[in-house]
């Protein structure tokens, strides 16, 4: 094809803009506008009051936009909806009214256990984790019949110590299994096996075997060897009992369900005779169990089944079982039996408070057993210390008291407390009272409690546990204001004397909350100092990281003002105790999270900056080759949050030197470096804004320093696109600040980096072609080049040529049109450059427009360049003539056509002819989008109406749509 001649269309940007503008229409304020706040009138009726008094209130609120979640639920969230439903007295549907009435009354009376009652399931794990042993355990099961044993009461209690030989003999019978030397884990596994075999026996209809398993298991609860494991054993075995109770209940329930299921709130009349007889049989069987402890536990396990027999069964059985526990001599075994009975009672009949109270009073009545000879002898044999022994009681007594105290009136609680007071050695009870009673109740009497704690025997229950329990209550309920300081002083006086670092920190951690809640940094600082003092010797802190972290968390919850926080003398020394890297980083992260969340204003406070720089440096320094990407990202995010919050106001130099320091400190985290470059660029622009666009000698030097900062920082980045974009951005900033040679250097650097762009890059862990990113960048780069004046020492259009050369030499993907697309995109730039007055310029920067003043030589140079580019494009189009290329050919031809139409002077015949040819080429194979073609024709028609473009109407005649041959 003969070489084309390029003539850029002359543009009058001002006039074009004027023409394109929409007519201004005055806006009526009452009209709809998408950004105007929407007023939502939201009226809802609320059900209030537990007694069911229904009050309806309408509220209207206006919000910026309706919250999608609340609008979905019509303003009421599902949880409160449930709560409202259960509290309200809205009659349920169809049921006969009398039974509904009855059911409702009963429900109200019972005050069923609510969500405010911490369930047993929440305690299980804690107990299992806390009461462990390394000693060997044993399980002794007699699976044979009970009868032969019953005949000789003197051998009632099986001998615990058996020689190995005897055991072997017994194994021969097959009825007895004694498992010795079990580790704790073995024990747990065995019990789980028993649980499984219980279920299996049940499902294979071996009900007698199932009962035997349960009896044997509950017998294990009378064995107090390896006493420190007893609470955990209790948990494991009562799990089995629960399973059994559920199986029996469900079985009998299903017997009543023929022909149709009975309601959950069934009455005795709904139960058929067969079911009743089966149920009665279970109770007779259990009543004949010889030994006290299994008989008690197994009957308690099926307590709920009394509902099948008569109305009053449960309320008669509970007191009887409660009294039965008096027969258990071992106080620990007895207290856990009480705990189980209370637990079953709370589940089945929470309204029967009397039995709960009776259990507690019986516990008090037999409390002296704990200090009796039998127990003492046992402890000597097992070599268990009294304080350790006493803590074994805590879970059970906590639980009993929690049941007793649940929704109990203050009068009752006061009475209970008084009764505890009267007993000697009552620290154990006191501890549970503080643990289980309402925090408000305890808080109001905190001073009393401290008095009682002081009166306790030193040798008995550990005092730090007592203070721990008190602290727990005070962490969520406030004592009278005047008593707070004395309470803290009294408590800390004791806590600081605790010798074991582990005991100390467990208690101190609890009290930190109270201190933070009511006092100032002075008191918290004192507490921190004390913690440091206790935890430093022998590196005790190494074993207490969770507690120390919790202390930190509590402080951060209450102190959001970081200048106050860091002015605490002991805060940083406290932070220094976290010496294990992973923990240290965790703690630093939590500090930064709180800072980012709560710091509202940018700060220059040196105390904060120094401290946080230290914190951030710790986080940064934790990064190594093994750090995963996510971790790096989250660390960088936190550090960036900090950097963004640093502002020295008008002291720009200080800000820059901060960035210099930060760059040195955070050099391993690329996102932070990027943030710093942005910060510095922003700083330069801020300086420009302050100076109103004209720099003084000083500020000019400063912005050049900023540019230098960016220029030497960018190369350290590994991400190529970050580098490209930052070069471009920094170049733009430099240009805006009239630093021409710096801008030139940035852009030149960008161009020189281009060849390094790999063909694929990793995006969110996936390999993607980089072509699209590269094209984006080049287009953006081209539009900047319009305003960059040519370097006086370099040739005309030095940067444009440089860029195009790089594009030419770049190894593009095979079968890619990217290079040609860049050429086509360069044409609008060149066309814009040849205008007399440019589309945009930078204030106080002379661009080529002024530099050359429309010099014909300059314009000719541009035209020559354009012609070369068009030639290249046309050559490429030719190579696409084959089968597989025709689609691309059509698309490229249409692109070039559009560019010629927009930027070329089509009065020139050759150019005009070229345009028509391109149109035809793009339509030749029918791959073009007809709608685009139609719209293009429309556009041309419109353009042709302007006098200076009237020649387009001639061309229009030559462009046809039906070129599909």
């Amino acid at each position: 094809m003969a070489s084309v001649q390029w003539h850029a269309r002359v543009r009058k940007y001002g006039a074009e803009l004027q023409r394109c503008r929409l007519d201004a229409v005055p806006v009526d304020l009452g009209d709809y506008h998408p950004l105007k706040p929407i007023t939502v009138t939201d009226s809802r009726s609320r059900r209030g009051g537990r007694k069911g008094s229904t009050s309806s209130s309408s509220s209207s609120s206006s919000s910026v936009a309706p919250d999608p979640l609340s609008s979905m639920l019509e303003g009421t969230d599902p949880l409160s909806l449930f709560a409202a439903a259960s509290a309200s007295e809205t009659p349920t549907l169809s049921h006969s009214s009398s039974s509904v009435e009855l059911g409702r009354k009963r429900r109200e009376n019972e005050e069923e256990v609510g969500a405010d009652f911490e369930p047993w399931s929440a305690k299980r794990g804690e107990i299992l984790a806390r009461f462990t042993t390394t000693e060997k355990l044993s399980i002794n099961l007699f699976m044979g019949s009970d009868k032969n044993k019953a005949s000789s009461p003197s051998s009632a209690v099986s001998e615990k110590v058996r020689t190995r030989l005897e055991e072997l003999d017994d194994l021969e019978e097959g009825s007895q299994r004694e498992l010795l030397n079990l580790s704790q884990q073995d024990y747990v596994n065995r019990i789980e096996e028993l649980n499984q075999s219980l279920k299996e026996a049940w499902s294979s209809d071996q009900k007698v075997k199932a009962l035997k398993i349960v009896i044997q298991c509950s017998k294990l609860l009378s064995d107090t060897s390896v006493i420190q494991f007893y609470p955990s054993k209790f948990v494991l075995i009562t799990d089995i009992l629960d399973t059994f109770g559920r199986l029996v209940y469900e079985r009998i329930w299903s017997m009543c369900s023929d022909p149709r299921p009975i309601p959950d709130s069934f009455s005795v009349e709904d139960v058929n005779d067969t079911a009743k007889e089966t149920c009665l049989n279970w109770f007779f069987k259990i009543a004949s169990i010889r030994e006290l402890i299994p008989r008690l536990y197994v009957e308690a396990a099926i307590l709920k089944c009394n509902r099948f027999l008569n109305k009053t069964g449960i309320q008669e059985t509970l007191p009887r079982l409660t009294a039965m526990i008096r027969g258990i001599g071992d106080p620990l075994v007895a207290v856990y039996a009480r705990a189980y009975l209370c637990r079953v009672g709370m589940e089945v009949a929470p309204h029967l408070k009397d039995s709960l109270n009776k259990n507690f009073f019986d516990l008090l009545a037999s409390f002296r057993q704990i200090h009796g000879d039998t127990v003492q002898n046992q402890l000597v044999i097992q070599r268990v210390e009294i304080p350790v022994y006493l803590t074994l009681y805590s879970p059970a007594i906590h639980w009993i008291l929690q049941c007793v105290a649940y929704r109990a009136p203050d009068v009752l609680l006061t009475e209970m407390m008084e009764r505890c007071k009267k007993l000697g050695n009552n620290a154990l009870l006191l501890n549970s009272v503080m643990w289980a009673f309402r925090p408000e109740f305890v808080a109001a009497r905190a001073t009393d409690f401290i008095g009682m704690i002081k009166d306790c025997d030193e040798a008995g229950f550990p005092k730090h546990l007592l203070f721990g329990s008190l602290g727990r209550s005070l962490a969520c309920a406030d004592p009278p204001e005047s008593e707070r300081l004395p309470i803290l002083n009294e408590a800390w006086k004791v806590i600081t004397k605790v010798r074991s670092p582990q005991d100390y920190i467990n208690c101190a951690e609890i009290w930190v909350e109270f201190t933070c809640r009511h006092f100032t940094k002075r008191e918290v600082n004192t507490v921190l100092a004390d913690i440091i003092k206790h935890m430093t010797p022998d590196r005790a802190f190494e074993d207490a990281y969770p507690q120390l972290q919790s202390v930190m968390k509590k402080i951060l919850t209450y102190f959001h003002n970081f200048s106050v926080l860091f002015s605490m003398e002991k805060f940083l020394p406290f932070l220094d105790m976290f010496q294990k890297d992973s923990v240290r980083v965790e703690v630093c992260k939590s500090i930064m999270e709180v800072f980012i969340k709560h710091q509202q204003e940018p700060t220059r406070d040196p105390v904060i900056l120094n401290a946080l720089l230290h914190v951030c440096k710790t986080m940064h320094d934790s990064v190594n080759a093994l750090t995963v990407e996510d971790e790096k990202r989250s660390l960088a995010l936190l550090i960036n949050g900090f950097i963004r919050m640093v502002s020295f106001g008008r002291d720009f130099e200080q800000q820059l030197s901060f960035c210099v320091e930060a760059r040195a400190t955070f050099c391993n985290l690329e996102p932070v470096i990027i943030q710093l470059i942005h910060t510095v660029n922003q700083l330069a622009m801020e300086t420009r804004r302050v100076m109103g666009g004209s720099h003084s000698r000083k500020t000019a030097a400063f912005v050049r320093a900023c540019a230098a900062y960016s220029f030497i920082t960018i190369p350290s980045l590994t991400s190529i696109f970050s580098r490209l974009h930052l070069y471009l951005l920094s170049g733009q900033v430099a240009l805006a600040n009239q630093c021409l040679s710096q801008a030139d250097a940035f852009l030149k650097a960008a161009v020189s980096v281009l060849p390094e762009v790999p063909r694929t890059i990793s995006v969110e862990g996936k390999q993607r072609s980089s072509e699209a990113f590269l094209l984006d960048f080049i287009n953006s780069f081209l539009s900047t080049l319009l305003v960059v004046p040519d370097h006086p020492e370099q040739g005309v259009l030095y940067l444009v040529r440089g860029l195009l050369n790089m594009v030419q030499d770049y190894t593009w993907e095979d079968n890619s049109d990217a290079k040609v697309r860049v050429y086509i995109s360069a044409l609008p730039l060149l066309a814009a450059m040849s205008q007399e007055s440019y589309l945009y310029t930078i204030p106080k920067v002379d661009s080529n427009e002024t530099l050359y003043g429309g010099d014909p030589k300059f314009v000719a140079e541009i035209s020559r360049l354009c012609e070369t580019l068009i030639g290249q494009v046309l050559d490429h189009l030719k190579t696409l003539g084959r089968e597989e290329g025709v689609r691309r050919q059509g698309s490229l031809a249409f692109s070039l056509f559009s560019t010629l139409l927009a930027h070329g002077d089509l009065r020139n015949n050759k150019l005009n002819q070229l345009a028509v040819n391109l149109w035809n080429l793009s339509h030749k194979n029918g791959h073009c989008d007809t709608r685009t073609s139609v719209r293009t024709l429309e556009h041309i028609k419109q353009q042709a109406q302007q006098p200076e473009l009237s020649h387009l109407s001639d061309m229009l005649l030559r462009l046809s749509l039906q070129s599909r041959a």
Partner: protein
Amino acid sequence: GKFVNDLSICRASPIQLISSNIEVAKPGKVPGGKTEIPFEFPLQAKGNKMLYETYHGVFVNIQYTLRCDMRRPLLAKDLSKTCEFMLHCQPQKSKVQPTPVDFTITPETLQNVKERTSLPKFVIRGHLDATNCVITQPLTGELVVESSEVAIKSIELQLVRVETCGCAEGYARDATEIQNIQIAEGDVCHGLPIPIYMVFPRLFTCPTLETTNFKVEFEVNVVIVLHDDHLITENFPLKLCRV
């Protein structure tokens, strides 16, 4: 059908208490498929005999059986089927006097002691709410260990059945433990009442029975086992009845 009763004493020949015979179906053909023939007859003792509750003991066995015979024509065998049925006495109309009993057990109250001086000191008090017991109601009461020099190991309730029967050689007596229930385990708290509570086992108990030929009686033993394996037993005869 035929109705027979056996009563065997001392392996002596069974005494027939009742026998009656009724025809439930007239001769004829039984149609194919399932045929149900309802029947009933009064339970009337023979002569001057009395009917007792069904009871299976060691010496004494009171059993009621029902036999159904089906006579068939010459060439086919007759069919016969026997099954046991239970007999419960009519509940007695009269009110039972519970007759409660209080007890105190100390080394001094014991009999059959070889060396009274070697016994540790203890005081155990208690009461049974009734010694005339209704068989369907549990035996109840309370027991307090007021003091004990030696720790207690276990306290148990032992239900014993005593059968006595007369025969040619005189009379035989047999005591069998039929249930043992532990009510205390370990060194129980002194001064705190421990409940006495025992359900009478359904299969092994019947109302106390006294006839000219034999007796079935019940007793409960409160058994206290001390830590040094001393065994202290206090015996209480019971009278069981059905109301």
